[in-house]
């Protein structure tokens, strides 16, 4: 074998052991009723776990909640991120310092972010709760105890933590827009809006797709702040399909059903990601 082959072997071997092997087991587990205690035997149940998913109303509802959570969060992050990127790109002085401050939230542990906001939203001493009451949007009750406010709260938290990511990705894209094209458009007398639509945006297509794709993958991955802030409540209002998997596998300890649930979730994420990548390639965007 070549030198390069030998270099890859340790990583490849370990990767197979810790990712391919568990993946294989996940598929096997999804066909079993997994024993809860070491002494018991797991039994083969065929596709019953998958059939069980469809019959589970919480699972079906979880997708709706997830779609709402992901859709609203990502739309807000996209728009705000783009605005901030444009402003940062135009900033003459202090752009570096401002950028550094702006990106702080995405380095924090999602659990920590959950607690920061749990404290701020507390009904008796949270400063954000106090602010919302003071300006009069909320008359009574609590934020995390109300079904629609709780959803708004977890969206706000995601927007706080991850808008900087969108902003920095878009900023990187804006910096790569060829200046000669912008100049040419300007010489032709194109107004700023036209220059933005005809020159800036087409040059950013690939960066936008990558940013949205990664953000989508990540928002599907993390359930930490939901765990800290609402544990899926109140009355299941924030129980996304990702979060519900945690309940199924590690609260009800139905590992077989959890594996089926996880496998379907993974397939959906991959399917949507592939769709994204393909549409980018069709548009002729390059990496």
């Amino acid at each position, binding site marked *: 074998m070549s030198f390069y082959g030998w270099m890859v072997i340790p990583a490849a071997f370990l990767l197979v052991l810790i990712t391919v092997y568990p993946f294989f087991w996940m598929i096997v587990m999804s066909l079993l009723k997994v024993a809860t205690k070491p002494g018991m035997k797991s039994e083969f149940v065929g596709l019953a776990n998958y059939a069980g998913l469809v019959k589970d109303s919480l699972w079906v509802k979880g997708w709706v909640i997830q779609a709402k959570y992901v859709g609203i969060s990502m739309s807000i992050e996209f728009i705000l991120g783009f605005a901030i990127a444009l402003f940062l790109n135009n900033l003459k002085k202090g752009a570096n310092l401002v950028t550094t401050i702006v990106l702080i939230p995405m380095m924090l542990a999602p659990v920590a972010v959950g607690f920061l906001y749990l404290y701020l939203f507390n009904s008796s001493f949270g400063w954000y709760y106090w602010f919302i009451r003071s300006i009069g949007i909320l008359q009574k009750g609590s934020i995390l105890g109300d079904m629609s406010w709780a959803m708004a709260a977890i969206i706000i938290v995601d927007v706080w933590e991850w808008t900087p990511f969108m902003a920095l990705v878009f900023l990187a894209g804006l910096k790569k827009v060829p200046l000669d094209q912008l100049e040419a458009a300007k010489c032709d007398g194109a107004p700023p809006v036209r220059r933005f639509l005809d020159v800036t945006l087409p040059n950013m297509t690939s960066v936008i797709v990558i940013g949205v794709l990664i953000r989508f993958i990540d928002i599907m991955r993390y359930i930490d702040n939901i765990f800290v802030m609402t544990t899926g409540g109140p009355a299941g209002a924030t129980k996304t399909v990702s979060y519900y998997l945690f309940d199924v596998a590690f609260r009800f300890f139905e590992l077989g059903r959890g594996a089926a649930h996880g496998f379907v979730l993974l397939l959906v*994420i991959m399917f949507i990601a592939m769709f994204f990548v393909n549409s980018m390639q069709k548009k002729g965007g390059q990496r």
Partner: protein
Amino acid sequence: MPQNVRETILKKRTAVGTIFMVIVLAVWIVWTVTPLLITALSCVKITREAFATPEYGDWKGVLNIFRFQPTLEHFKTLFKVEGFGPYIWHGLVAAFSSSAIAVIMGTLGAYGLSRGRFRMESNISFWIISTRMAPAVVVIVPLYFIFRRLGLLSTIPGLIVAYTTFNLPFALWLIKGFFDDIPVEIEEAAFVDGDTHWDVFRKIAAPLAAPGIVAAFVLCVLFSWNDFLFAAVIGGHAAKTVPVGITELRTTVEVLWGPINSATMILVFPMIFLGILIRKYLIQGLTMGAVRE
């Protein structure tokens, strides 16, 4: 391109536009910093002062945030009563060990993948990237099952292996991007001088990719230290880390806000520092090399 040329092309600014821009950025900075500031101040306040929100609508009461006598009482509770010290240690050991394994194997593998020709190369790449798509909960289900049989649950080695499941593919892919950027001609010149493959890797390629290797290591540490789900499910009792420790300060009886806020600061500050240290590579890292600043 010089800065001033850039400016003349892009910036035809009106005063109103500038003011609007500055206001939006200022609001965004306040919005970003406020949660951290409030919690940072709360952890050095006594409980009564930390809970001192004024009457609704009493805007002058905002100053209550800054009115307090500094105290370290909550940190004392955190370490002496709640025994938080070991959690920090567990987190550090697991994060650094896993990151070291991932970066060492990742660097070797990345160099091999970048320079060698393999059958099924695109399949290997797809597998590595697709690991980034798997939600943590999804990965944990089979890992829990396997670890239970191997007796690795609630042990530090188990936690290290669990973290390596996301650190290794990440480090491998990110570092490969840095090797791909090195012109092969530099290495070919060294071969002509009679260096072996290993010499070329050690003396030329690895040093040139060093910033990427360091960035990958720092990001691996950051992901592992910040992780909650793996530590909660796989780590369990004997291998609790800081994020798990914090969630346990909230019991059904009471919520220990003072210690929680203190622990939150311990959790976030080292990572803010590390993140700023590798700021240049942060976006490249988080997008697995697809977007570069």
